[in-house]
């Protein structure tokens, strides 16, 4: 079977980019937004206006706030929403879900597929399910207006996995034609533990919190913000992440190897082992500004759906993660939130009570 019709759930940056790009490439797109107000500008304009890898106005076959209507007749359901919205979509999908609906969690960050499946189970769905996920979004993009999106590029060499693992090849075969840049890896544990954003965004944010709030983020996040001390904390987070992966038998590469492989730094910088240098010298990232406040996905996603599940996997593996725990705690205190409670815990990934030795089987079988 090949995909012709895609239900895109979520009308934010990723959803709009996917709707425009897939529409431009001849797929039939059914776009769901939770709020009618966000769809009105698209209706009035007659589609999404895109710039970048696709240029022009791209009509969308269906715009709806009804999840059931969006997925009707779709060959693939793409979940392009922040992890906090997983429960909403799981509850909406559970009554109409059947084994013939493949779900693509784009992006899954760390444990996104596990989380979504757990939410579906909680919502009462008991039958077979197939999901695939990428660690980050398939696009480098930004929504620039209510109905406009800039799509700078596809994300290169993007790690992809499926849950349960027994259907991963099938999911990869289904999705690869849409996104030829995806690369299949061993499991959702491998994509999840390769969530590099969580490794360096959080130290960068927390250790520049004063600067961000005082100036509204008026500095260059990588070039200026990732100083030697921030680099050392990032390295400690990365070492803890690698220790967790190793204890779980999950293949993993260092932050610097990933950063280099993604084309974000030079081989010399990678070989120096100096994360600060690699970030400061990163050519593609050199003009990227800091977020204007802590109330940003660099914190909400990368702490709650990055560092928190890293620590959860550490608990499961019996590996201490003091630096990760420290950043989760300090982030929570600064923002008046409780990431450790509200983020992606073992329970929310459906992994509570699973022993480390049984994890691989669970991830492969889905039960």
């Amino acid at each position, binding site marked *: 079977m090949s995909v012709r019709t895609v239900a895109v759930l979520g009308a934010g940056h990723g959803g709009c980019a996917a709707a425009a790009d897939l529409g431009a490439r001849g797929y039939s797109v059914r776009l769901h937004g939770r709020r009618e107000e966000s769809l009105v500008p698209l209706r009035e304009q007659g589609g999404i206006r895109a710039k970048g890898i696709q240029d022009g106005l791209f009509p969308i076959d269906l715009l709806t706030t009804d999840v059931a209507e969006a997925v009707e007749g779709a060959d693939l359901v793409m979940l392009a929403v922040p992890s906090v919205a997983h429960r909403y979509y799981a509850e909406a999908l559970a009554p109409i879900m059947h084994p013939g609906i493949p779900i693509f969690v784009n992006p899954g960050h760390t444990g996104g597929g596990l989380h979504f499946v757990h939410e579906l189970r909680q919502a009462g769905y008991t039958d077979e399910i197939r999901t695939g996920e990428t660690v980050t979004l398939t696009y480098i993009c930004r929504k620039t207006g209510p109905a406009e999106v800039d799509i700078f590029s596809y994300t290169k060499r993007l790690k992809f996995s499926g849950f349960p693992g027994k259907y991963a090849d099938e999911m990869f075969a289904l999705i690869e034609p849409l996104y030829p840049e995806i690369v299949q890896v061993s499991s959702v544990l491998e994509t999840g533990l390769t969530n590099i954003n969580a490794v360096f965004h959080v130290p960068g944010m927390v250790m520049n*919190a004063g600067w961000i709030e005082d100036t509204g983020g008026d500095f260059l996040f990588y070039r200026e913000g990732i100083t030697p001390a921030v680099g050392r904390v990032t390295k400690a987070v990365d070492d803890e992440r690698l220790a967790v992966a190793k204890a779980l038998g999950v293949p993993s590469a260092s932050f610097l190897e990933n950063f280099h492989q993604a084309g974000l730094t030079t081989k010399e910088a990678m070989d120096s082992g100096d994360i600060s240098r690699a970030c400061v010298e990163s050519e593609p990232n050199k003009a990227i500004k800091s977020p204007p406040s802590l109330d940003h996905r660099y914190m909400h996603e990368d702490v709650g759906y990055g560092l928190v599940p890293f620590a959860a996997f550490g608990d499961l593996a019996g590996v201490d993660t003091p630096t990760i725990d420290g950043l989760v705690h300090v982030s929570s205190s600064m923002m008046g939130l409780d990431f450790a409670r509200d983020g992606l815990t073992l329970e929310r990934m459906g992994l509570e009570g699973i022993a480390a030795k049984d994890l691989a089987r669970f991830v492969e079988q889905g039960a």
Partner: protein
Amino acid sequence: MTGQKVKKIAIFGAGGGGTSAAAHLTTLGFEIRLYSQDESALAPLQEIGGINYDAPFGKGFAPVPVITSDAAEAMDGAELVMVVSPAHLHEKWIRAAAAHLTEDQTLFVSPGHTLMLIPHVLRDCGIENPVYCETATLPYLCRRTGPVDCRISRVSDFMVFGGFPGRETNRLHEIVSTVYPAVTAFSNVLETVFPYGNAIHHPPAFFANAGRVEATGGDFRHYYDGITPSVGRLIDTVDAERLKVADALSAKTMPFVELFWTMGYTTDAARDTGIAYEAFHQSEPDKWIPAPPQLEHRYFLEDVPFGHVIYSELGRLAGVPTPTIDHIIHLASVALGKDLRADALTLDRMGLGGVSKEEFLNLLEYGFG
């Protein structure tokens, strides 16, 4: 102790605090004997025979009759021996003083806040029943501005004061208050540890501004620009843990904002909010203080090992968790690439390894006598 009036004061330490005390107390009519082991710091002062000061009480030259690197000479005939140094030098200064300390001399450490370190060192030097007293904070907001110059921007009008053993506090207070009327007697040297304000706010604020410090060489105002609402919340979290530890040890202390206000650093309006961010943002005296130029600075190097670590250790003794404080100790260590617990002021280092809470409180009140 005879209760004789203080006339001669030996001051140990010739940094900003020591030189400011020498200048200020000279203007009040005390005879000062200034001691340091750092001969290069003493030489210019010896050459002119005193120190230039620029202070709220005037501007001028304070002649200091004895400026020496000989502790015995400095202490000879002094009724009060005042140690003015960063906490990490306490041990060194106390060892230098111990051999010459007589029973009728009062040992006063300002700021102290090293809990049982000083009694422990004195005992190690052969003084079996040590007696001393201390304040939580330095009496001055000051700095040494040149080899023979100091600037005092503020003389404190409120200092938490405690004695060791605690039952000696009132007697010691009577003596020291003739020199510094602003000292207010609390129960003991546990109660001078908790109001050590720098220990509360420097580590979290410095960590939350570490990138900016390094990227700009500290080109911003540490308090006014650096302590934003989120950074203030982190300080408030640290403070809440500190208060719980104090409470579990039955130590009287104030919330940080209250303390800051009491010391005259912020407005009534800020005090009413109870929020660290407001307290700092509305602090006129602190407004212009620049950030340190690098992270290798006492905000981490002193205020973590001699501040956060003590709170953490006391929390352990009292059975009160201090997660925020513990995480900041770890994160600051990683940021610096240096284990800040390694040389820290732990209970072990104060000779208190293995004591129970009850034994500890008993020792504080009754000492070794």
